[in-house]
């Protein structure tokens, strides 16, 4: 049953795509319904996986394995462990919410939903892959739909990527603009995102090919590779660096982050949600799946690199977010700052911090998903994302304001939301090994409060500009429901985290033990 649920989670969106191919744009409601039904199937199946995952047994579960090419040693091998399960669940939630958030898209709705479903399904595929080939397969497959989604349904970033500091001086993100040729168009953002991520992907592909070449068994199967892999130090270091930086570019780690805020700003709301919510987690997840599983020794030796870079991510992202004027830009930079916490949790290589990092990915997906959804709503209503020209929207949109406040609270990690649990675990778990980074992380939380509250005040409180007097609140259930689902999940797991915690813990403990050479690998032969 679990195996079937896993396959259903992965293939329901593809099924939706196939059905959508035969529906024309003349029936917009049918198009949306098909998309919503397939996303709903994915959500239910992934919820089932989340509930029945056996926390006592741990390891990879619901495994399906079909030989795909004997000649190249590739099998279609999928299954989830305690890290994949919550991330698959998060992807399904965001896909489901994203479908409803983009309910009002009229221009070529069919194509939009096709690309959105492919994007989400490919992301889910990465979280399930137990074969390096398919990991890359789905990874690259998730990048390309972004190009069309951003380019066609996105919005120009216009001039307000420029920032002013409190004294009114012009500032800009110099590192982020390293490869910026000055264009503020969505085409530019889309192309930059695609090329950046593809470059990262081929870098990781080289690492994967080296893993394949130097392993004694010619296979791409992760479960086999992690048992047989024995590389000499130089080779392992090279592979690790390729895999780490290849995948970390999507995470996005400083200084490889520059594609991300521009991409977020240009993307339509649902795409931003999936992009910030789950696509960025592909980076962390793939590093855990490939580097932690196959190269434990190199991970132990080299993971301090991430501990150093995450400090820059946290502080740099936070500071830029504080000065940014574009709502989506603020949220985008806050995401890339928050991803630094995940890297910190991963780098400490501690049971508690790594568990916290995984929970943080889930928590951040929900919180940032909500923020992007509402930034998108505000943009649709007011046609601007420039914070200084907005204000006082609370009178027009009480519901959005309330939800936004909750999302901000979740984002800063208020007790009662799942973000709080994750943050506390990362901070407690990393204290022993990286006290300096923990101090920075705590300051980062303060910084998060500063820029999120600043944005909140700028958007919803103060004086309402007469230009935006026509702005409407979310009143229909299709608009409110996705937000309520995300808020509900965030609070539910904030109050009842134990099942979630046990799921993650069941996988993290053997993994950390193996990396620290405290325990041998728990072998798990493909069934």
């Amino acid at each position: 049953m679990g195996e079937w649920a896993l396959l259903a989670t992965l293939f329901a969106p593809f099924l939706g795509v196939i059905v959508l191919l035969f529906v024309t744009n003349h029936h917009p409601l049918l198009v949306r319904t098909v998309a919503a039904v397939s996303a709903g199937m994915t959500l239910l199946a992934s919820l089932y996986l989340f509930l029945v995952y056996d926390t006592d047994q741990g390891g990879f579960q619901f495994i399906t394995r079909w030989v795909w090419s004997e000649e190249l040693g590739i099998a279609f091998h999928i299954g989830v462990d305690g890290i994949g399960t919550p991330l698959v669940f998060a992807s399904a939630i965001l896909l489901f919410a994203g479908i409803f958030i983009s309910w009002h898209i009229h221009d070529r709705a069919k194509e939009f939903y096709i690309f959105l479903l492919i994007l989400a399904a490919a992301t889910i595929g990465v979280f399930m892959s137990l074969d390096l080939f398919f990991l890359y397969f789905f990874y690259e497959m998730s990048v390309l739909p972004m190009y069309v989604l951003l380019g066609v349904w996105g919005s120009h970033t216009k001039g307000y990527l420029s920032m002013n500091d409190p004294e009114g001086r012009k500032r800009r993100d110099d590192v982020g603009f390293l490869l910026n040729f000055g264009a503020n168009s969505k085409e530019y953002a889309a192309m930059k995102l695609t090329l950046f991520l593809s470059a990262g992907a081929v870098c990781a592909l080289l690492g994967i090919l080296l893993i394949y070449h130097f392993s004694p068994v010619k296979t791409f199967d992760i479960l086999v590779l992690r048992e047989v892999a024995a590389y000499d130090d130089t080779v392992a270091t090279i592979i690790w660096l390729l895999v780490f930086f290849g995948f970390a570019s999507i995470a996005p780690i400083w200084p490889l982050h520059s594609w991300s805020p521009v991409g977020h700003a240009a993307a339509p709301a649902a795409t931003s949600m999936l992009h910030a919510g789950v696509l960025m987690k592909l980076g962390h997840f793939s590093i855990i799946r490939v580097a932690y599983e196959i190269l434990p020794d190199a991970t132990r030796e080299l993971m301090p690199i991430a501990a150093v870079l995450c400090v820059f991510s946290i502080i740099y992202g936070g500071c830029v977010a504080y000065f940014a004027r574009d709502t989506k830009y603020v949220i985008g930079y806050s995401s890339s700052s928050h991803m630094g916490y995940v890297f910190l949790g991963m780098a400490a290589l501690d049971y508690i911090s790594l568990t916290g990092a995984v929970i943080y990915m889930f928590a951040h997906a929900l919180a940032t998903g909500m923020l992007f959804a509402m930034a998108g709503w505000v943009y649709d209503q007011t046609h601007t994302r420039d914070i200084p020209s907005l204000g006082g929207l609370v009178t027009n949109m009480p519901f959005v304001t309330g939800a936004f406040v909750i999302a901000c609270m979740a984002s800063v990690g208020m007790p009662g939301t799942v973000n709080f649990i994750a943050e506390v675990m990362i901070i407690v778990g990393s204290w022993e090994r990286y006290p300096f980074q923990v101090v920075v992380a705590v300051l980062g939380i303060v910084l998060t409060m500063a820029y999120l509250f600043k944005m909140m005040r700028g958007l919803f409180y103060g004086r309402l500009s007469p230009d935006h007097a026509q702005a409407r609140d979310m009143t229909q259930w299709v608009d409110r429901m996705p937000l309520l689902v995300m808020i509900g999940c965030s609070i539910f797991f904030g109050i009842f985290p134990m099942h979630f915690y046990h799921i993650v813990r069941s996988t993290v403990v053997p993994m950390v033990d193996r990396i620290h050479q405290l325990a041998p690998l728990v072998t798990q032969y493909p069934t």
Partner: protein
Amino acid sequence: MTFQLPLSGSDLLLLAPEMFLTIWLCVVLAVDVTCKHMDHARLAYLSVGGIVATLLMLIGFEYTGVRGALLHDTFVLDGVALFFKIVIVVATALVLLSSIDYVQSFRLFRGEYYVLIMMSALGMMFMASAQDLLSVFVTLEFSTFGFYVLVAYLRDDQKSGEAGLKFFILGVFAAGLLAYGISLVYGETGTLIFSEMTATPGSYGLAIGFIMIFAALGFKIGVVPFHSWIPDTYQGAPTPVTAFLSIAPKGAAVAIILRMFYVALATFKPMWVLLFVTISIVSMTYGNIVAIAQKNIKRLLAYSGIAQIGNVMIGLAAGTKRGSDAMLFYLLTYLFANMGAFAVVIGVSNQIKSDEIEDYNGLNRRSPFLAAAMLLFLLSLAGVPPLAGFIGKLYIFVAAIEQELYLLLIVGLVNIVISMYYYLVVVKKMYINEPTDPTPLSVSAPLQAAIFVGIAGTLLLGLYPDPFIDWAVAATLMFSNVAAPATPVGG
């Protein structure tokens, strides 16, 4: 010595597809001459019927395992020959299907067009079976002859005339090089048959001879530095002919190159591996970088073709059995993606009479089908999963890394990113830009069929490549001893 033609009935079976096609093209010609007022589309379907029958015959051979050699080993039907014949015949069928509307615009010689296409196909089928230098020369000229006429087919179009002239002059020059190279090789080795040259000691004459022969073949496949005719000829030639030119001769010439280097020159592998590493790096990089600047979709596909053939050469640079498998598979993926892309170009140019990339603006609004098909084909050419091109690239990279050709591998991977840029620029025009003229475009049935075959091939090879990989592996069994792994060179 009395000349005997050792042919029996069972031997003739091996030649059956070629003989059938010869008879069929005579029939088509005869029908064209006798029925003056017949719709030319019927001639096209008649030709397609013959091609499909040939294809079925070849597939029958593949399944029943009919193999053998004829005419003092000058004509051989083995796995490689069958593979490439099938590729050529499939390409021919797709070209014929996508030509039907295009030929409508010719004022004269509509029937001859189909005959010439089939004649070139026939020549290339013989090329795939050539395993001595004499038949290489004869078959190569035979197939090119049809193309000389086809490229210059648009009599009133200056560009077509220019393309024909360029192609002709350089083609004849290549033929001269080929003949001279053959004479040098014959002088050094005393034989023309590839398998008898294996024991020859190396000498300058041999090296120069083979380099000249390779230059002629390199002209056919269009690798740098023998590529200069490609962009102009591709742009000027009638688009279906360009499509044909971009895949079928490459397949046939790769068959000869494989036989020549894997059989005749197996002992000199360390030397030619270096040659191919260089050629591959230069072709990929040059093709991809120059493609970025193109404004015409045919020129863009021409340069992308140069880059793609550079990718194919990676397999040869690996110089192993697996390298040859990967090359075969790669060409198969290239066949569907490239033919499909050209079919879309034909569909667009039939209606808007333009091949400028600017005119693809808003294609998604004018014809969602054409735009989606083009998106698939371009992404397959770029090597994006889950499409065929990705598996092809991965396969060829696996072959390269087994020989530890790291430099080649890195250049190949970087080129994926470069190529993604210009393919995405076309995607941008089709999907993001708004059309200047929003009238919807229609696609005729035969063209639709060709595009659907392309889509099916691209998806099938991407999602379920295993049978095709096995086919490629089985086809090149003859190379498993010849190209034994030597010490890795280069990289």
